[in-house]
């Protein structure tokens, strides 16, 4: 691969930024030039969060790309995945965590959350591959909902021809030592979900 553009999106508090840090670090380890851009909003939970990560064998200028230029999207939440669909290439791949987090506007009945099947069908219609992953369930089985992001990273790692050890190293680099063990388990669980060990 000469170049790859990633988009990682979700809801504040889900750990998307750490996930994008890991993806960026893996790119560097794999010999790419790397740039990354986060739009974080406020420190409070619940907002829409998006990161772009670019890997390229050649020099990169902008830390983000435009619509229709993303190869791989990891969406931590179905509605957020749909919201960022415009960034996807036709040939792109979407990894979608099926955990729904309805915005408050939906909770209080002002707006309606689109039907799950419709979201999946809509995304499937615009890209080459859609993978549905219940990463939250796996994380809860491991005893900590906060490792959902690492499960997704594990799954993502199975889609790319990069030595898994690069990924594990990057996970080690970005998670607190106290939670390293459960995160490494989450990574392996994600790989299993992707059909690899």
């Amino acid at each position, binding site marked *: 691969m000469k170049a790859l553009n990633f988009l990682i999106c979700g809801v504040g508090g889900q750990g998307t930024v750490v996930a994008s840090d890991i993806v960026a670090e893996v790119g560097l380890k794999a010999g790419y030039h790397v740039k990354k851009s986060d739009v974080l909003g406020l420190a409070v939970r619940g907002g829409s969060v998006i990161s772009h990560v670019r890997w390229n064998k050649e020099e990169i200028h902008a830390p983000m790309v435009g619509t229709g230029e993303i190869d791989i999207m990891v969406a931590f939440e179905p509605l957020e995945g749909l919201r960022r669909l415009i960034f996807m290439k036709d040939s792109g791949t979407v990894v979608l965590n099926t955990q729904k987090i309805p915005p408050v506007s939906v909770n209080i009945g002002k707006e309606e959350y689109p039907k799950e099947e419709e979201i999946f069908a809509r995304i499937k219609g615009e890209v080459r591959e859609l993978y549905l992953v219940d990463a939250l369930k796996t994380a809860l089985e491991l005893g900590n909902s*906060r490792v959902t992001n690492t499960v997704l990273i594990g799954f993502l790692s199975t889609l790319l021809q990069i030595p898994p050890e690069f990924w594990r190293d990057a996970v080690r680099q970005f998670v607190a030592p106290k939670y390293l063990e459960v995160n490494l388990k989450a990574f392996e669980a994600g790989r299993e979900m992707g059909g690899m060990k």
Partner: protein
Amino acid sequence: MKTLLTGNEAIARGAFEGGVKVACGYPGTPSSEILETVSRVYREAIYAEWSTNEKVAMDAAAGAAYSGVRAMVTTKLVGMNVLSDSLFYLSYTGLEAGLVVVVCDDTGMFSSQNEQDNRWYSILGKVPMLEPSDSQECKDMVVLALRLSEEFDTPFVIRSEMRIAHSKSEVILGERIDNTPQPKKFPRDIEKYNCNALFARKKRPIIQERFQRLKEWAENSELNKIIWQEMDLGIISSGIVYEYAREVFPRASFLKLGMIHPLPERLIKDFASRVKTVLVIEQLDPFLETQIKAMGVQARGKDIFPPYDEILPERMKELAAEAGLIENQPKKKVIDVGNLPTRAAVFCPGCPHRATFYALAKFKVPVTGDIGCYNLGSLPPFNAQHTMGSMGSSLGQLHGIFISGSPERAVATIGDSTFFHAGMPPLVNMVHNRSKGVVIIMDNSTTAMTGHQDHPGMDRTLMGEPTERVDIQELVKAMKVKLVRSVNAFNVKEVESTLKECLAWEDSPAVMITKGECIFVSRKPKPAYAVDLEKCIACETCLKVGCPAVFKSEEINPKNKRKKAQIDPVLCNGCGVCSQVCPTSAIYQTGKLEAKE
């Protein structure tokens, strides 16, 4: 070896390599991570602190630089207004050791109340300014600015912005300089360091002469570099937008400015004279363009690119094609997903501000607001905070409502950190000038919105040292506020009854302190609540607390045809506010703690 760093991390690294000993600032997105990185990674070499506000930080850095050690100040864009008073005198006094101010602008207004272009401060304050376009430059420019600051006897400003601060790119690390300047005998140089008008007046021509020397320096500096390619189009640009322009105009020639004040006039004119068309690409105001045109250079710029919002590569491409500068772009496939539910930021589950805004919404009083998470009380379902301007402005506005003769009794909200930052002078003003109104100080024991930094009401410093906690209640009493009440922020009844008492107080200003820790302080959620669907009558009262964890279930109450409530046990942090407002006691604590940490 190359390391990936954000712009903010790279600034911190630059402070380390450049021999900074003192780093001060006030938290503010997108600048906060600079000092956080300093305190975490470079704590052995650099003393870092969250000062009570940006001006205090600037003065502290001045004192350190006068004492002979290198210093750095960090701020978000609007903090520049707060510290500018002090930056401007520093431009006159100069210093004994290097001093750098790093300001992070917020083009596109992701988390700020305005979009001010801080490049103008360089002209206004007569201070040189550098602008990096990636993390490597962030680091290198801090190191260089510290040295130049001493050489030219002036503070330097480095202007970053959100897309640099929160983006990562590759950085080659260096070593910390040898011979880091150490504190020396404090200079008793009154003519230099006392800005008495008599002395300052004598400084004025010296500043002018310094400006000329800096300008000459800029003409030959490697900070300003030319990339010769095709000569049809010559682009003058700086900062992050330069990187975008390189992608949009891969064959154009570029003059990349790293020093944006003073500008290298000869270099600019020379570059312009060799290309057919000059295009100035900058975000926000025509800062470069105005000056370049004043040099007599014909240039295009703001006739193509708007003076507000980001000009991301995709937008730049569209505008450049419309202007005929590049070929029309092939039409992109449009993926229209329709109107999706918006995801506005909301109070987190377990937030201590929730009950207060539930009460304020109920009482329908005018509320002047301030800067912090509590401004989310201005959004649905509360719609209860009616103004927000700048740090500390809620109290001044509250006073203004009273002296206007308005018949309504108004309320101001202000957070604990914001109160220390800029809320104390207007409260003292209210007392002195016989004002009335209710001030709610929302004490959540942290500076929450910017990422949970310490402030004087806490017992730890940024460096992790134990310190004296300034008691807000005692402080307010010492200011001679007569009615001061402290309440449990999570107790809806207590908040409501105390607010009622304060609103009825006719004598003088009343202060209500709502005490409740931000969920990020202890990070110890309580067991989640759940809805007893037998008891729930689908009245939707619990939805009025605007909690992301409370939502409508598929179960319908046949009487009113509405959906009953449900609570997500993963999101719920167990504050219990929803259960307190439930009229049928249908919400109960489960005793089950979902695994979260």
